[in-house]
């Protein structure tokens, strides 16, 4: 589904991603871990099509197409979803209105009619239940005055609404309390099927107890320096990153 080959990306002349290789197949869950500033969010942004970053070399194909050719909104329409590490506030626009606009744009792209009010509402209700989000939150201005946890939960709600093929969750667990973590993780698990894939960026093993990854990658200084199974996450939790740095010969 997603194939990243020797990806180099920079911002304002500073190279951040220094040769990323990653293969994601349908049905898989990949976890990306790594110290602060190693480039995790940058990778997520580049995948989502943020223009601030320049792709200097390398390739990204998504469902057989060159992802780098597409604008951010076109990528989203093709099924790429990013749950933001820091969700953005849009005053005066409710989550409901935001989702209605987004969903209908995506439907238009697929040649479908806009969703009628009744179908939209029933979809809302269904997804609200999934992530146990309160309707009053959805009628407020998007992310404005939301608590950290509410913002994260709202991101997963949006993901549920849009049913993407590739979801990238950038530290969705940070800021969530223990119950919310379980609820959000359950939501993500329920949305999983053999046709879609998830990339989970996290600092903590805890989330991976709920969303069990098929692969764990360690990103360090713009490169994936180690890949393993879910046990790698345990090891990182226990030992930190120093041993990896030593192994990778960068310490």
């Amino acid at each position, binding site marked *: 589904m997603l194939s990243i080959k020797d990806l180099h990306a920079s911002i304002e002349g500073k190279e951040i991603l220094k040769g990323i290789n990653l293969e994601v197949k349908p049905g898989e869950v990949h976890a990306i871990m790594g110290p602060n500033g190693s480039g995790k969010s940058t990778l997520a942004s580049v995948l989502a099509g943020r223009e601030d970053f320049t792709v200097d070399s390398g390739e990204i194909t998504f469902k057989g197409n060159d992802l780098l050719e597409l604008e951010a909104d076109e990528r989203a329409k093709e099924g790429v979803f990013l749950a933001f590490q820091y969700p953005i506030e*849009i*005053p005066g626009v409710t989550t409901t209105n*935001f989702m209605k*606009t*987004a969903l209908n*744009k995506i439907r238009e792209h697929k040649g479908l009619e806009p969703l009628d009010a009744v179908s939209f509402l029933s979809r809302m209700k269904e997804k609200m239940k999934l992530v146990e989000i309160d309707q009053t939150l959805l009628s407020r201005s998007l992310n404005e005055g939301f608590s950290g946890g509410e913002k994260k939960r709202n991101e997963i709600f*949006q993901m549920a609404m849009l049913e993407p093929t590739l979801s990238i969750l950038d530290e969705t667990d940070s800021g969530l309390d223990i119950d919310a973590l379980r609820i959000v993780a359950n939501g993500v698990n329920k949305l999983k099927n053999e046709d879609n894939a998830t990339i989970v960026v996290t600092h903590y093993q805890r989330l991976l107890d709920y969303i069990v990854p098929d692969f764990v990658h360690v990103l360090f200084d713009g490169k994936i320096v180690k890949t393993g199974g879910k046990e790698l996450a345990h090891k990182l939790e226990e030992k930190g990153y120093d041993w990896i740095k030593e192994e990778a010969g960068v310490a």
Partner: protein
Amino acid sequence: MSKDDQILEEFASKEYEHGWTVDFEADSAPPGLNEDIVRFISAKKEEPEWLLEWRLKAYRNWRKMKEPKWANVHYPKPDFENIIYYSAPKAKDKPKSLDEVDPEMRKTFERLGISLTEQKRLTGVAVDAVMDSVSVGTTFKKQLGELGIIFCSFSEAVKEHPELVKKYIGSVVPSNDNFYAALNSAVFSDGSFCYIPKGVRCPVELSTYFRINAANTGQFERTLIVAEDDSYVSYLEGCTAPMRDENQLHAAVVEIYAAKNAEVKYSTVQNWYPGDKNGKGGIYNFVTKRGICAGDYAKIAWTQVETGSAVTWKYPSCILKGDYSQGEFYSVAVTNNMQQADTGTKMIHIGKNTKSRIVSKGVSGGKSQNSYRGLVEIHKRAENSRNFSQCDSLLMGDKCGAHTFPYIEIKNSSAQVEHEATTSKIGEDQIFYCQQRGIDEESAVALIVNGYCKEVLNNLPMEFAVEAQKLLALTLEGSVG
């Protein structure tokens, strides 16, 4: 090119949707202004002697006055001797009913998305449409008449209700109030008149549409709304003009009189032709709008969505004379390309316990200049008066300008006046967030701007809120590449 630059380059490519002309036979005065023209207009309209005298007095005052220079707008001075001050679409006889309204004219209104027909009746809007300078038919008149409500063209009011017109005309905006008000008083050709009797709640929105059609004409309409004790009315005005190379003058006067415990809501969606992207053509929109809360507990609320005109000079104001009276001003002003807007309000607190609220949202793109100018004046006897003002500016790109000129004059120490102002740039983060959800850049800008203006748009009657949102989206269309 940075994203901002792109936004503002492309912003300029938006076309004016209502820019076409319709050929009517027009019955016009020769260009230029002198006492004979004033007499001509008055005679054309078969006006009583007192009104002619009133016009002539205004004309003589106007001759002595100078154009205001203090606004933050720059434009070549209109050539007042080259303007046609009266142009009526020629009709065989005055239409008696809607069916008799000139089909060409009705087509025009339909193209504007305004139907004078049953549609509006169903949606509960009574429409008085003024093309160039003459009112062309009011729906709903009979139903309103049963409640004692008068809603008709200004000229008809002069004929049918001269005592009311005589009593209130110039009572809120004196004929010598300012240069453009004086000009309007001398040459006004038509407009709307509303009268809501004591204790009556007007059951429908009253609405007027204005359109400038003939070339070289100025439009000088006058609206007078009188709400007697304990009455309520919601009134709307919309407008358009065709694309023309030369600038055309629009100098309207709106007067609102609210008696004791009366409430008047006045909303307008201003969409005059803004000129092309190089600033050629467009309407000079120099308008005086003022309301007086004459009685205790009276309330006047202005809501305006300003997207058109090359130059706008407009300050819908409230004189809060009655104790406990309230004034509100909600404004969205969007400027693009070379447009210039200097708009705001005046809240004059005279009565005790008076309250006012100002919410102004300016959105500027292109090389446009957008100024908020507001005055809050608390008189000596205005015990316990309150004002809250919020003025927000949103910039699209860095070639446009946003300015805020708040003036506060307090002569009573018990007053509470609060002023908040913010200036922000449309956020790339916000646009990217929308895009990441599948919303293209252009729709994202429209969504964000509509959200930004929501507090104001919420004050428009439902149907017009939708229209205004579309208009905002249209104004912002092509703003990104």
